[in-house]
């Protein structure tokens, strides 16, 4: 089981990095976010300094990367459904969940690399964060990514069509992004948004991320976010593993 998961993880990673241009783009993206948005947000932040803006925006951008980066990874699975390679793996002695888990694990590895880049960028611009907070932020990001990746694989195996998949993703992405307070904390938002935001899981992740960057370890948003995402990640990953049964249609 573990051997096969490792096998597929390695295979997927090699596939991702066989053409280094695309992963490079993926890795650049978070750094670009920081460089481009931080000055913009500076004017909106109460304190007014770049470091304050970054402290608010860095955790938000990490969660955004976790969701964005992983939600689209299911497209690869649709391509393999079509060219028949998924069918081939399903007929091999491979432990079936490994086919999906390998992809999810690959997404996690990419996320961690991206997160490290963001943190280095933020540190270079003057943001400081404690070791415990750092580990917790990374774990939270991983859980968020796990949820998004599992959701994406499950969706791909259910929808089985690129067009339907992108429509479905677009439908969900906008409200999720808007209601998470990525660029502006929800506390600045109108009342109806404040009311709706807690329904959005990403909101909790962003709030907890900000608390961690502020060094507020006792903040209740942290256990809430972990609770929400561990449950969601387990659910979506299990769903994607079960959806594999539908390979042959």
């Amino acid at each position, binding site marked *: 089981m573990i051997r*096969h998961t490792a*096998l597929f993880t390695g*295979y997927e990673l*090699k*596939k991702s990095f*066989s*053409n280094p241009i695309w992963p490079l783009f993926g890795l650049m993206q978070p750094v670009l976010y920081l460089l481009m948005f931080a000055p913009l947000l500076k004017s909106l932040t109460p304190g007014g300094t770049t470091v304050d803006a970054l402290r608010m925006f860095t955790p938000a951008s990490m969660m955004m990367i976790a969701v964005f980066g992983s939600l689209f990874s299911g497209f690869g699975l649709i*391509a*393999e459904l*079509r*060219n*028949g*390679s998924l*069918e*081939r*793996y*399903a*007929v*091999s*002695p*491979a432990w079936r969940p490994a086919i999906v888990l390998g992809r999810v694990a690959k997404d996690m590895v990419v996320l961690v690399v991206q997160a490290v880049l963001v943190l280095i960028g933020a540190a270079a611009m003057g943001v400081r964060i404690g070791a415990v907070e750092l580990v917790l932020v990374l774990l939270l990001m991983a859980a968020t990514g796990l949820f998004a990746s599992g959701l994406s694989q499950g969706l791909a195996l259910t929808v089985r069509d690129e067009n339907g998949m992108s429509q479905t993703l677009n439908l969900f992405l906008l409200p999720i992004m808007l209601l998470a307070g990525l660029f502006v904390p929800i506390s600045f938002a109108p009342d109806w948004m404040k009311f709706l935001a807690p329904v959005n899981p990403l909101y909790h992740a962003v709030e907890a991320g900000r608390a961690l960057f502020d060094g507020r370890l006792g903040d209740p948003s942290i256990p809430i976010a972990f609770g929400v995402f561990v449950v969601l990640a387990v659910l979506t990953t299990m769903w994607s593993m079960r959806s594999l049964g539908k*390979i*042959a249609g």
Partner: protein
Amino acid sequence: MKELTSPMIIQAQGLRKTFTTRSRKGAQTVEAVRGVDLGVAKGEIFGVLGPNGAGKTTTIRMLATLIAPDAGTATIAGHDLRKEPAQVRRNLGYVSQAGGVEDTTSARAQVMMAARIFAMADPARATAEVLDRFELTELADRPGRTLSGGQKRRVAIAIGLVHNPPLLFLDEPTTGLDPQNRANLWDRIRQLREAGTSVLLSTHYLDEADALCDRLMIVDHGTVVAEGTPSALKREVSGDVITLRVSEPERAAETLKPLARETRVDDDLLRVYVDDGEHTLPALLRALEERGLGLTSIALDRSTLDDVFLAKTGRSLRDAGAAV
């Protein structure tokens, strides 16, 4: 691996599969396979011949553990299809109709991955060997998307064979290949027989089934309409077929009945099935002349698998696909 005592590598009885598809017009059921029995002996090339939609792929997918049959049982390489799917998979090579070659990775990486999944002792060596066997070494490091249709097919089969399975499934292996590549692939499949690998292949080409298969079954609308060696099947229909273009086919058929085992009218074509064409021909011509029936053309052929299909289903295999 368990020592196999049965001479059969596949034994299946009463396989059935019904699909339900939901569309805007409501639920629709398709009886893709309706009670198929099949037996493949060790080391033999067994063909499943049938038009589009006959249920060939569905049958192979059931035998390959991809979809569960609604009814029926099967034993593959000594293991029960339902109870021991994992053991069955260990003994299989499976090359789907789509092929299963990935676009972005190299042929070598894909073959190597298959070798690793099957826990080969030396995956790199097994990979190099099978790539060499299929003359793919030169192409092995190019991404799948840059390969031609025929090259991709060879990669697909190399992936399916890297672990030296005792049984290989090939779903329409030569569809879309040019005549030279087809003949080439036929030779490679024959070499598998020499190596003792059993092959179950599906095809809708008559010549392919005839040239390649030790035994075959003809399927239509999910049922087996005939089974046997190609020569026995053809003998069963008749030795030879005389195809005539005549002015009044119905009346000509009536006239020639005493000379033939069977006659069949197809628009303005008349097919006369006889045991010995060369010796029947003079008598046949004389009979037509006596009745004053005008003859436009005449041809004498050995009967083909198409004649078998025609005799069993009333349709020609050449037209059957379009009707589905």
